[in-house]
C-alpha cells in the first residue's frame, strides 16, 4: 500500500467514520420502524392517499411503503444516500487537488518522485474505498437492525442495492474530481457538484410528475438509481450499474489526463 494511499485514507478517516455512523444509525432506525409500516400498511396507504401524487412522486414514493423495496428506496435511496454520497464525494474529491493547492500542500508531495498520475490515482483509490465503506455501513445498519426487530430482510437484495449505491457514489466523486482538477477551485467544484445533483433530483421529480417531461428523467442520475426491484426481487440492475461505472471510470480517466497536463498554480 503506497504512502500516498495510506495518507489519503488517514485524511478521509474522520469524514468517512462520521458519515458511516450516520448511515448505520439512520438505516438501523428505519429498519426498527419498518415493521410498524408493514403491520399497518392499510392505514399508511390511506394516510399517504391524502397527499397529492406529485408530492409523493417528488420524494420517490412509488408503491406501498409496506413493501421493503419501496420503503428503503424512498428513505435511503432517495434521501440519505444521495446526501451521504454528495458529502463524502465532494469532500474526498476536492481535497487532494483543488483544496490542497489552495492550502499550499499539493506542491510538497508533487515535488517528490511521486508522479501526478500516481498521486491522483491514490486519491481515487481512497474515494473507491471510502464509498465502499459507507455503502457497506448503510446496508449493515438496515440488515442488522432488521434482524433485531424481527424483520429479516433479504441480505442478498440489500447487498446488491449497496453495490449500485456504491457505483452511484463513485460517479458523484469522479465527476467532482474532474471539476476540481479542471477548475482547481474547491468552492467551485463543490458548488457545481451540489448544484448538478440538486438539478438532477428536480429533473427526476419533474419527469415523474409531468409525462411530457419524461425525457428529463433520462438525464438524471436518480433515474438510474432505483433500488426497489433489486431489494424486492434480488435482480441486479446491470444497465444502471454500468452507466454509473462508465461515468465514474470516464471522469476519473479524464481527471488523470487533465491533472497530468495542466499548470498547477493557485
Amino acid at each position, binding site marked *: 500500500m503506497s504512502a500516498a494511499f495510506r495518507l489519503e485514507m488517514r485524511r478521509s478517516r*474522520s469524514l468517512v467514520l462520521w458519515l458511516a455512523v450516520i448511515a448505520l444509525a439512520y438505516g438501523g432506525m428505519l429498519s426498527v420502524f419498518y415493521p410498524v409500516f408493514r403491520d399497518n400498511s392499510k392505514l399508511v396507504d390511506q394516510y399517504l392517499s391524502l397527499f397529492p401524487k406529485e408530492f409523493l412522486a417528488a420524494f420517490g414514493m412509488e408503491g406501498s411503503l409496506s413493501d421493503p423495496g419501496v420503503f428503503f428506496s424512498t428513505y435511503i435511496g432517495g434521501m440519505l444516500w444521495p446526501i451521504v454520497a454528495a458529502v463524502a464525494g465532494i469532500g474526498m474529491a476536492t481535497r487532494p487537488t483543488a483544496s490542497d493547492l489552495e492550502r499550499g*500542500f499539493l506542491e510538497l508531495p*508533487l515535488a517528490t518522485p*511521486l508522479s501526478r498520475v500516481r498521486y491522483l490515482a491514490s486519491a481515487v483509490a481512497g474515494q473507491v474505498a471510502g464509498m465502499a465503506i459507507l455503502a457497506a455501513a448503510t446496508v449493515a445498519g438496515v440488515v442488522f437492525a432488521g434482524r433485531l426487530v424481527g424483520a429479516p430482510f433479504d441480505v442478498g437484495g440489500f447487498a446488491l442495492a449497496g453495490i449500485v449505491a456504491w457505483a452511484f457514489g463513485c460517479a458523484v466523486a469522479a465527476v467532482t474530481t474532474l471539476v476540481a482538477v479542471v477548475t482547481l477551485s474547491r468552492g467551485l467544484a463543490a458548488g457545481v457538484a451540489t448544484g448538478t445533483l440538486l438539478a438532477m433530483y428536480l429533473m427526476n421529480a419533474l419527469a415523474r410528475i409531468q409525462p411530457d417531461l419524461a425525457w428529463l428523467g433520462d438525464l438524471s442520475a436518480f433515474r438510474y438509481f432505483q433500488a426497489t426491484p433489486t431489494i424486492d426481487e434480488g435482480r441486479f440492475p446491470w444497465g444502471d450499474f454500468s452507466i454509473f461505472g462508465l461515468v465514474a471510470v470516464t471522469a476519473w480517466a479524464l481527471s488523470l489526463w487533465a491533472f497530468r497536463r495542466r499548470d498547477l498554480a493557485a
Partner: protein
Amino acid sequence: MMNVVEAEGLTKWYGRRRGILDVDFAVAEGEVFGFLGPNGAGKTTTIRLLLGFLRPSAGHAAVFGLDCWSAAPAAHGRLAYVGSEPGYLGELRAGEQLDYLGALRGLPRGAWRPMVERLELDPTVHIRKLSHGNRQKIGVVQAFMGHEPLLLMDEPTSGLDPLMQREFLALVAEARAAGRTVFLSSHNLPEVERACDRVGIIREGRLVNVSTVGQLLGEHWRSVNLVLEAPPAPGTFDLSNVEVVAITGREVHLMVRGDVNPLLARIASLAVRDVAITTPDIEDIFLRLYSAPATAVPAEATR
C-alpha cells in the same frame, strides 16, 4: 563541471499576465546560486517551472539534464524543495507529515530526527497548533532531512527568527561543503550575500544581472571619506575610476570603482588625518539595479 540547473529562454505567461520572460541561467554542480528579486518579480514562477508545476510558454528548463516538465518525477528524485509558505496538514503531527513526505522520497521513517533536534522543533505537536516560524521549520527540516544533490528553496527563511536564520545558513554551508547544489530564491539580501557563490537578479520577469557576489560588490562604487591635514591641491584625485563627490576644506568625499590601488597611492602621498572606505552592501547594489531601466542580461553572461 556539469550544470545541475539550466534555463534557456524560459518564459511563462499566465494568460495575458507576465510571469517571466526569456530567462537564461545555469547553476553548476556544487554551487550556491542566489535568486534575488522583490515580490512579483518572477522568483516563484521560475521555481515552479523548475519543479515542473508549470509548463513553459516558451523556452526550456532542465535539472540534471532532465526536462523539468516532461520528466518531472525523475528530476524530483534528485532534489529536495521547500517553499516560502510550505503547506501543511493541520490534522497531522509534524513528525507524521515529515514521515509521509520522507516515504515519498524513499527515506526511512524518522529520517527527520537529527534535523528536528538541531532546529528545536517538537515533532509530536499537531501542526495547526504550531507558530508560523515553527511551521517554516518543518519545511527546512523536510528539505535537509534527505541527501538529494539539489536543494531548491523559495524564500525558506521567511518567518524564521535570527538564530534559526543563522542555523539555516550553516545548513546551506554544510550542503555546499558536501558538494550539493543549492538554488536559493530570496529577497533577504544579507542572507544571499553570506550564502551564495553567484547571484541572479530578476526584475519584472527578466533576469537583469548574473554575477558572483564578489563581482557584484567589486563592480560597484565604494565611498571614500578623507580628512586631510590641509586642503588638497586641485586635480589631486584626477583618476579615471574616481569621482569627486565633494571637497569641503580638508574633508574629501570620493567614489571609486574597480581597482583601488591608484587611489591608495595618491592618498599615501598626502598627510591624512582619517580615512573611511565603505563597501556598498548588496542591498545598495540591488536598489541601484532596480532604479535603472530593466534590460535583460545577455545569455552568455549567465553561465
